[in-house]
């Protein structure tokens, strides 16, 4: 096995172009498990720890995305996302705080979740919920390619990266409304999600975002549920009034989220339980975020 240690991003891209099968390693919290248990023996490891720009983030405006955007370096550890970005990336920071344990959150990053593309990765539901204009910045010696988050996940543990590409950053619009994340597991720490749900209100353009984790071959959006809720909020003037959504619409939203999943029975839970839990999490996260939204309307009016 080879151990490649590029000192710069350009060297990393060159190394990946030369060794397309090299496995990138950053925090190692997934890759090392595979190696320790001899499940995977790549020809080469490509260590990204020396590339300091991967652990930085910046805010700015970018073409194709409305408003302010956080360009999050792919290797910024979850502990720092929660500490430094809990406002602008509320959903991702709540999700990141449920990853593994403190030790794991000091190493694990969104780039690792995306590279692994496990349907159980905690970042995915939050990224999907943050909007359709979340982009993965994939880079190779051939140049930079922006992959919309909806096009990124293509199968169980498969993403749409080309073999010579590395993830440089993730471009995520700054939250313009409350965001939430909920996850089912047997305890509060060190759990792989039985299923998970991310939700975001986008009052600026009158949409809502959803993301389902661990309940389909890939992380996925509940598109019909999003459309139903956006129509409901718009037609009843609720964005302006901040009035109650009401149990019928909340219930329907939960049903549509549950229907969007295609879970399986496995060691962590049954398909039926996952469907049930998703409806519960959808209703709860909607209620939490809507309460936060109406409170912000009221305090703005006061």
């Amino acid at each position: 096995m080879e151990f490649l240690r590029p000192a710069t991003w350009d060297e990393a891209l060159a190394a990946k172009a030369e060794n397309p099968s090299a496995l990138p390693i950053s925090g190692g919290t997934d890759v090392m498990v595979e190696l320790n248990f001899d499940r995977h023996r790549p020809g080469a490891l490509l260590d990204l720890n020396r590339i300091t720009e991967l652990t930085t983030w910046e805010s700015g405006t970018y073409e194709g995305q409305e408003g302010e955007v956080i360009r999050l370096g792919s290797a910024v550890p979850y502990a720092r996302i929660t500490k430094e970005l809990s406002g602008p990336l509320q959903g991702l920071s709540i999700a990141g705080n449920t990853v593994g344990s403190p030790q794991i959150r000091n190493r694990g990053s969104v780039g690792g979740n995306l590279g692994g593309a496990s349907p159980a990765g905690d970042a995915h539901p939050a990224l999907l919920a943050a909007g359709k204009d979340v982009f993965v910045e994939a880079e190779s010696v051939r140049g930079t390619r922006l992959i919309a988050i909806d096009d990124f996940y293509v199968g169980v543990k498969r993403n749409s990266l080309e073999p010579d590409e590395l993830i440089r950053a993730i471009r995520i619009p700054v939250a313009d409304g409350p965001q939430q994340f909920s996850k089912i597991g047997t305890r509060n720490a060190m759990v792989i999600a039985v299923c998970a749900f991310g939700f975001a209100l986008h009052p600026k353009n009158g949409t809502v975002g959803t993301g389902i984790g661990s309940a389909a071959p890939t992380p996925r959006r509940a598109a019909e549920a999003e459309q139903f809720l956006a129509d409901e909020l718009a037609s009843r003037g609720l964005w302006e009034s901040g009035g109650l959504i009401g149990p019928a619409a909340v219930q329907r939203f939960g049903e549509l989220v549950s229907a969007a999943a295609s879970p399986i029975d496995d060691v962590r839970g049954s398909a039926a339980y996952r469907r049930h839990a998703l409806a519960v999490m959808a209703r709860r996260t909607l209620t939490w975020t809507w309460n936060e939204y109406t409170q912000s309307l009221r305090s703005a009016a006061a």
Partner: protein
Amino acid sequence: MRVTFNANGRPVEADDVWEGESLLFMLRERLGLPGSKNACEQGECGSCTVYLDGAPVCSCLVAAGQVQDREVRTVEGLADDESGLDPVQQAFIDAGAVQCGFCTPGLLVQTHDLLEREPQPSDSDIREALSGNLCRCTGYEKIMDAVRLASARKCSDASEVSQ
């Protein structure tokens, strides 16, 4: 391959390191630092917790080659030749928080980090900080006592110094 780095304040060098090997294996098997324990090898148990450039991490999930030119501090590096055991270690002994002892090195490093960041943690802060460290002797209550004791001593030492 050869890996050179700083372990507990001194430069060290490990030879014939396999490229896929973990920092934990290198510490224990090549550098004579067996304090960090090898239990789950998948980041579930925290027994192998060490500081890497000042942040506690599971050494079983760091590739050995990734620590080239970096600083690692293991449980062996908590005690000081002159002042003896670290207050966290003394508190674990005094509170009876050590049963079989296998989880203890990881708990010591993780507690050391917690008290550096937050000298007076609440019980929920302690539980959260230690959520990635498993004790199968079910000694958690004594461990909580030990962290509270270390915190109390640390705070009273600090107030004595300031007086």
